[in-house]
């Protein structure tokens, strides 16, 4: 680990000011990703601004929306009774991630900005455009079983590993930001970038822009929602494919509305808009669920080792929607 100065921020403006004094400064949440990356010298900040003491309140507003302080721990958010009752896919997504110990440490802000688990990104003997722009990508023709099938580029096939973000993107979450030029809000769906030619630039954040809160708009039918994660072992493993979904059915058995998102398949949490469009207004049948999954996955471009993810995503989408509809799956 390279040496750094440690400072603890008392307020969001404080944090931004402290970070702005050093080009390489990083914010520290629970440290569960950053400390590991610093130990590997993939991250080498000269200054760490501890933001774990900033707002961690989880507020239910009168209109049914939620405002979550970025320092709320993953455990606190998943334990919140409103989240459990009104947005079960969010609680389930968080609880499907990492371990009890890590969820106690991890913050909402840090979870959103956690970096990929691509082994070539971690291995300094390998070429990685994300670690070293222009170096090349050894995952492209390497062991790429866990890599992306959607939205990848010849420069990078890494995936975003967060479970929580899959639920957040399905729920149209909005991220509140504070930076040197003031505050702004952007949809979580627009926060992470696809890799294109610059996989090292992972988000649209300005330098030292701080996530202060995450807002989840009210969505009455999110009570009928869930998250399913498929992985190599039953617990404590990253997703091969995951599906977060909320389903609103009309009396006649058709899909009035739907939110659907995928994890483990792309450089960002993947909102499955094509599948949603294919299903809105259609009868909620297994055949239609499958057809919608197909619609989403027509653009899938699997690599040598991960073609299984296309079929896995198709089946998991179909199973999750069938489960939400009330058919055993």
């Amino acid at each position, binding site marked *: *680990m390279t*040496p*750094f*100065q*440690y400072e*603890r921020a008392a307020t969001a403006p404080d944090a931004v000011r402290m970070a702005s004094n050093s080009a390489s400064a990083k914010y*520290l949440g*629970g*440290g*569960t990703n950053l*400390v*590991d990356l610093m*130990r590997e010298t993939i991250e080498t900040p000269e200054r*760490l601004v*501890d933001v*774990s003491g900033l707002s961690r309140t989880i507020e239910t507003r009168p209109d049914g929306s939620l405002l979550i302080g970025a320092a709320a721990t993953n*455990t606190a958010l*998943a*334990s919140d*009774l409103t989240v*459990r*009752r009104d947005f*079960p896919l969010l*609680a*389930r997504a968080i*609880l*499907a991630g*990492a*371990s*009890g*110990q*890590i969820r*106690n*440490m991890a913050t909402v802000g840090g979870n959103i900005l956690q970096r990929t688990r691509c082994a070539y990104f971690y291995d300094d003997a390998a070429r990685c455009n994300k670690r070293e722009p222009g170096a090349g990508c050894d995952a492209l023709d390497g062991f790429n079983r866990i890599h992306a099938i959607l939205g990848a580029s010849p420069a990078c096939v890494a995936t975003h590993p967060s479970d929580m973000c899959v639920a957040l993107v399905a729920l149209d979450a909005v991220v509140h930001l504070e930076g040197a030029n003031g505050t702004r809000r952007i949809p979580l769906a627009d926060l992470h970038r696809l890799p294109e030619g610059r996989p090292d630039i992972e988000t649209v954040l300005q330098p030292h822009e701080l996530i202060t809160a995450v807002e989840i708009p009210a969505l009455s039918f999110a009570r009928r929602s869930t998250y399913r994660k498929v992985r190599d072992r*039953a*617990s*404590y493993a990253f997703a091969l494919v995951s599906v977060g979904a909320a389903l609103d059915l009309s009396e006649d058995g058709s899909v009035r509305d739907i939110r659907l998102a995928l994890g483990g398949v792309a450089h960002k949490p993947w909102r499955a808009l094509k599948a949603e469009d294919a299903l809105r207004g259609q009868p909620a049948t297994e055949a239609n669920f499958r057809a919608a999954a197909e619609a989403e996955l027509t653009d899938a471009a699997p690599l040598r080792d991960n073609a299984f993810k296309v079929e896995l995503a198709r089946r998991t989408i179909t199973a999750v929607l069938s489960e939400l509809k009330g058919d055993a799956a």
Partner: protein
Amino acid sequence: MRFTINDKPVEAEFDPRTSLLDLLRDHLGLTGSKKGCNQGACGACTVLVDGERINSCLALAVQYQGRAITTVEGLGQTGSLHPLQQAFVEHDGFQCGYCTPGQLCSAIGMAGEAARGVPSVVTADLGDETVTLSHDELRERMSGNLCRCGAYNGIIDAITETFAADGSQKGDAGARKAA
């Protein structure tokens, strides 16, 4: 910098790069907490901070100034073991013992979470505010602690006896063992 460690005030000076695990082991001589992977993947370094379990290998010690930390050394003493330690002995909850300090601290933190109603991914009804520590719940909630010796059955039996007060669960765990 000040901490309360196992109920005693402690002052220490160290480089900000020091993890809480290295502070405990290398600076304070509390070598009970173990370093398995040093990257959050095994749970051998689990300690309690204000009663909550964390992986001390991923924790920067500076971030935990002023907090109350409990390590395995603070749980019980020779001759007066913590009930969970005694149960580990009785149920063969270990072979080499390397993962045990982390298992113990993790299980105590886990029991606190269950008492506060924290759900897990195998909890069927997220609206249910009371947690029943069934076999499946315990396996899931303890999945952050690996045991290379594979003492899992003994570990789960020891935790069940200590924390899953409900007799039916004990029977359930026993039945599984017999099956």
